[in-house]
């Protein structure tokens, strides 16, 4: 099975000689990887394992990540950045080391460019709010792509409202491709900010951030990127991409919920006013005013999620240990296999590019005559977890003329066997809903 779907991929070169081994190797590798994830190994007869195909919503967590969070609370728990005793210093060290680990992971120059947030949404709100205060004026324009998750749209709607600026949409075609004409149509001399996702959570397509950052730099436009769907799956280097901001969530990259990251270019972070105000983000406070702390602490008001940061750093180490070559190879093979099987099922309409290589593990689809929520419920009856609805991207779905859809999203720990189960279940749905063959 995995043998066929590798046509055209790197694995293909070896196909004639090594195909059977490749298939076995793929399965064995998957089995080995799954041992790292407690949720796939719940003991007891009732564990009736779920086929988890909703990785774009949140990923599963390896044992080492869960342990890292636990270790912080068991051995290092004290309020970081406050206490003067050794336990608090230990907590601070762990927290700041996590920051360094994340900075290295995404190629930031300096760990002060890493702000810990709760999730991608908070980072995008921070960027929008603080940039509005810093530079947005009446009559300015903000360009956003039509494929943004609501998290990278609503903060800009608010920003535009507050500043008296306007939002301009960069349209894409039905495959998610943004043409140069469509891009330039949304840009003018008034454009101050470009907000764009790296990988779409509906179409799975990847935007060429490097090309856009080159364009923006020449014109003094600030590029705020949403890395929620890219950082977990492909190597992301903020220097190479040239983005000014990049926001992502820990929980989608095998880390815990409640911790996220906003990378910001140092020169901008230093000029920006704070986002939330209170403890931990000041140098000194008088009755009327305050001197704010240096970055990044200026943007981390209140007690931080140090355990979450420590566990996120462990997730980064886990990704590095697994290796993006393995992660990408597996996800590419799985995506090709899934799309191939889905295309064989009558009534299935895949949204976005027909080319699996352009989906990055995200496959949204509709099933003729069946509402996506019914599709998801029937798959659930076979213990297959997928997402259905508008995927927090209503303007994109409206643009594509689709009221809602079902989405499968893969991670490197998924297996061909799981995709077989999904495809079998999917192929039964129209019949279950009363349609003839």
């Amino acid at each position, binding site marked *: 099975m995995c043998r066929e779907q590798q046509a055209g991929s790197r694995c293909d070169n070896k196909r004639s000689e090594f195909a059977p081994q490749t298939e076995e190797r793929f399965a064995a590798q998957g089995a080995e990887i799954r041992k790292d994830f407690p949720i796939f190994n719940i003991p007891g007869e009732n564990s*009736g394992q779920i086929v988890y195909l909703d990785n774009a919503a949140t990923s599963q967590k390896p044992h080492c990540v869960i342990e890292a969070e636990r270790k912080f609370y068991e051995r290092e728990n004290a309020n970081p950045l406050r206490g003067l005793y050794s336990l608090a210093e230990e907590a601070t060290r762990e927290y700041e080391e996590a920051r360094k680990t994340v900075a290295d992971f995404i190629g930031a120059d300096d760990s002060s460019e890493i702000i810990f947030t709760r999730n991608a949404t908070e980072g995008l709100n921070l960027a929008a709010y603080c940039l509005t205060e810093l530079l947005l004026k009446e009559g300015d324009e903000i360009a956003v792509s039509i494929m943004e998750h609501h998290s990278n749209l609503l903060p800009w709607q608010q920003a535009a409202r507050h500043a008296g600026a306007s939002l301009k949409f960069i349209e894409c075609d039905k495959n998610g491709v943004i043409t140069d004409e469509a891009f330039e149509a949304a840009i003018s001399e008034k454009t101050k900010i470009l907000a764009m996702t790296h990988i779409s959570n509906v179409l799975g397509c990847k935007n060429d951030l490097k090309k856009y950052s080159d364009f923006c730099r020449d014109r003094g436009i600030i590029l705020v990127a949403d890395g929620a769907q890219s950082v977990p799956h492909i190597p992301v280097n903020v220097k190479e991409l040239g983005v000014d901001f990049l926001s992502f969530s820990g929980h989608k990259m095998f880390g815990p919920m409640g911790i996220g990251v906003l990378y910001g270019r140092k020169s901008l972070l230093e000029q920006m006013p704070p986002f939330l105000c209170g403890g931990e983000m000041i140098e000194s406070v008088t009755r009327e005013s305050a001197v704010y702390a240096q970055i990044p602490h200026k943007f981390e008001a209140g007690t931080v999620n140090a355990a979450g940061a420590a566990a996120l750093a462990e997730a980064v180490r886990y990704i590095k240990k697994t290796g993006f070559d393995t992660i990408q190879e597996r996800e590419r093979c799985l995506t090709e296999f899934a799309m191939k099987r889905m295309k064989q099922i009558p009534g299935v309409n895949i949204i976005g590019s027909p080319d699996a290589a352009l989906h990055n593990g995200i496959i949204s689809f509709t099933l003729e005559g*069946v*509402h*996506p*929520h*019914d599709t998801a*419920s*029937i798959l*659930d*009856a076979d*213990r297959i977890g997928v997402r259905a*609805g*508008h995927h927090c991207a209503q303007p994109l779905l409206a643009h594509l003329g689709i*009221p*809602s859809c079902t989405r499968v999203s893969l991670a490197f720990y998924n297996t061909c066997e799981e995709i077989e189960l999904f495809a079998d279940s999917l192929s039964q749905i129209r019949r*279950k*809903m*009363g*349609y003839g063959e």
Partner: protein
Amino acid sequence: MENKTFYNEILTDHNLHPGHKHALDDANMVMEGVNPSCGDDIFLNLKVENGIIADGSFQGDGCAISQASADMMLDLIIGKTKEEALELSDIFLRMIKGEASEDELELLEEASVLKDISHMPARVKCAVLGWHTLGEMIKN
């Protein structure tokens, strides 16, 4: 996870071949019901004469559960008084919470196939959409 048999013949038949999904030109009560989570959006049309629901229909789009539930509801309430319809609506909503008696379930006839929707909490809103709209309409 007892929803294996949930999409049974009764439900799918009402979804694919609804008897009451059409316009109703002489309706004197019309109300829209929306369930944002599934994007279900229905219009309930009733023709009420002397306190009796003489005719009714629904229009709009939605998932199978919302469509079938509205269709089964209309089967049940056409010909009943407003008070009887309200009473049935009350029983239906209690059935979803698992609080209706066996005798009461019988009064719901086919609509009782939705009893097990409580195993699918995310879909409860779909099942109650038509009934909820009916209640709002009659009470106001």
